[in-house]
């Protein structure tokens, strides 16, 4: 073995760096080494669309020194891809053959874009799945000669990439198989205001159709063929069809894998001194208790911090997360979706309110005493209080009127 470290963290993004920071807060002296397969030092991944649009430079996205991340005494190895884990010998092996022993190890390898195998030609030049800063750089370069781009998938990541390209004056067409954009986050009827905002912003949207093949020539992508026979000429394709956990390096390690790495309530894996957090880990939903996986910066940080505390000897239960927990703004329309938001054919108490500028849907359980989900579009004031009520499963009987009318404030919850 080349060397050993008290704490080894595999993966240098949200969960891994949050864990490193948490360990450092608890244990000022112990050695911490983060192994990242990317060439860039850890950065705020959600900011990479801004590199495509040109609004930010890569150096403005660096994690160390920003927000809660001091980066103090945390060793980061870049271009260090782990290919095998020996749980008995407590060491990891890198792609270049180096080995590193660990006292405790965290698997925070995140996820990678899913490229649907039924779409032909995804390896053509000019086809992207925006995931890393390196992807963003290549995409920004290609954008210089792109007049029209086609986005496959109507999720949030693709919408953000679409707006980055629109900002550069590129014509953008979004191809969505679902009946409406953001189908993972809300029912089609909830997305009406957002759809209008996207239309106003100049995004072309084709719903109910899927790509069959990507056509290329010597200059790379030149068209996308759809299942309805249409062909859209374009110079760039961006695929946003969800992600899959990076678990391949754990083959033969004895670490239990389900849909992702299986972690217990204290973020520990089934082998001694091993932990998992972030996109790669299977967690549970606080309302239903169902196992879920999410791919969200905020969730990854929360779980990573929790894992860091557990690794540093402070037992900290991870309370789980909502499968859906998103706040953002697309075009000029802010929105929040959290908890149980898909309500078609489900026996729940639902309150909707729609106006020209705002829409809200508040979802209560069948007895009407607990808030289980919320979609707020346009006016997202005090969304955090709703999240708190859902997560803590508070009996909301006394403040239900305020919730339904979207007038709730923290004062209503005080015992006065």
């Amino acid at each position, binding site marked *: 073995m080349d060397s050993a470290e008290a704490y080894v963290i595999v993966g240098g993004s949200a969960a891994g760096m*949050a864990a490193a920071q948490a360990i450092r807060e608890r244990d000022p002296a112990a050695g911490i080494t983060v192994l990242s397969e990317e060439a860039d030092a850890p950065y*705020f991944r*959600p*900011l990479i669309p*801004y590199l495509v649009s040109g609004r930010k430079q890569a150096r*403005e996205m660096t*994690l160390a020194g*920003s*927000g*809660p*991340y001091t980066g103090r005494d945390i060793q980061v190895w870049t271009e260090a891809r782990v290919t095998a884990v020996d749980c008995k010998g407590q060491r990891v092996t890198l792609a270049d053959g180096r080995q590193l022993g660990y006292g405790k190890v965290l698997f925070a390898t995140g996820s990678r874009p899913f490229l649907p195998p039924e779409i032909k030609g995804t390896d053509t030049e000019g086809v992207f799945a925006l995931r890393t800063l390196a992807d963003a750089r290549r995409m920004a370069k290609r954008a210089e000669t792109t007049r029209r781009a086609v986005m496959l998938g109507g999720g949030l990541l693709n919408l953000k990439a679409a707006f980055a390209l629109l900002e550069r004056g590129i014509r953008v067409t979004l191809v969505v198989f679902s009946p409406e954009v953001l189908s993972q986050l809300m029912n089609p009827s909830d997305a009406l205001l957002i759809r209008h905002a996207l239309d106003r912003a100049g995004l072309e949207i084709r719903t109910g159709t899927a790509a069959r093949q990507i056509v290329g020539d010597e200059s790379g992508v030149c068209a996308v063929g759809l299942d309805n026979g249409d062909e859209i000429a374009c110079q760039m394709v961006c695929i946003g069809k969800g992600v899959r956990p990076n678990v391949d390096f754990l083959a033969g390690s004895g670490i239990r894998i389900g849909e992702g790495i299986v972690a217990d309530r204290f973020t520990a894996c089934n082998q001694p001194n091993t932990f998992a957090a972030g996109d790669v880990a299977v967690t549970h939903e606080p309302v239903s208790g169902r196992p879920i996986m999410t791919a969200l*910066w*905020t969730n990854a*940080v*929360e779980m990573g*911090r929790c894992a860091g505390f557990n690794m540093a000897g402070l037992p900290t239960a991870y309370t789980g997360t909502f499968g859906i*927990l*998103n*706040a*953002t*703004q697309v075009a000029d329309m*802010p929105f*929040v979706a*959290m908890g149980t938001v898909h309500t078609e054919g489900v026996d729940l108490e639902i309150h909707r309110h729609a106006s020209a500028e705002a829409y809200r849907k508040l979802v209560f359980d069948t007895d009407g005493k607990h808030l289980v989900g919320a979609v707020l579009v346009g006016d*997202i*004031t*005090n*969304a*955090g*209080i709703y*999240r*708190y009520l859902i997560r803590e499963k508070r009996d909301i009987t006394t403040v239900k009127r305020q919730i339904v009318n979207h007038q709730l*404030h*923290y*004062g*209503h919850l*005080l015992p*006065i």
Partner: protein
Amino acid sequence: MTQPKEIFVLTDRCVGCRTCTIACAVAHSTSKTLFGAVAETPRPKSRIYVEWAAPAHKVPMVCRHCEDAPCMHACISGAIRRTDDGVVITDTDKCIGCWTCVMVCPYGMIGRDLERHKAYRCDRCPDRDIPACVAACPTGALVYQTVPAYAADVRRHASGEMVKGKGS
């Protein structure tokens, strides 16, 4: 780090005059004067809120600068950090207006500046000895104290009440 001062809220003293909200907005205006502030565009915004709760309570609310601040860890752009004085601040230049902090603050204390497309929140008035809201409150409903000093005041008051209760 010395023991930082916190803003304590005495809801039973608040009469709902909202002097604190005006003082806050003025303190965060360009001109720093009331007459200048009302004429400014965008309109200066208060970081403290006074809400009404049934039957007749007025509740002044301001960022608690939480110990394990959810907003700071949730922020996807690294815009929120804690200063050496323990104050959680939002770096407006880094904020991208994604509103994740709004979604996770359990107190609803983060405002959205729609003109600038930035989140804003209490910064405890770094350039003042006493935050503007506390200095302006005419009824003493806002108290700027360290936790030990505030606790000592509460104990002193309670012991006085206990003595009175015995009728001695």
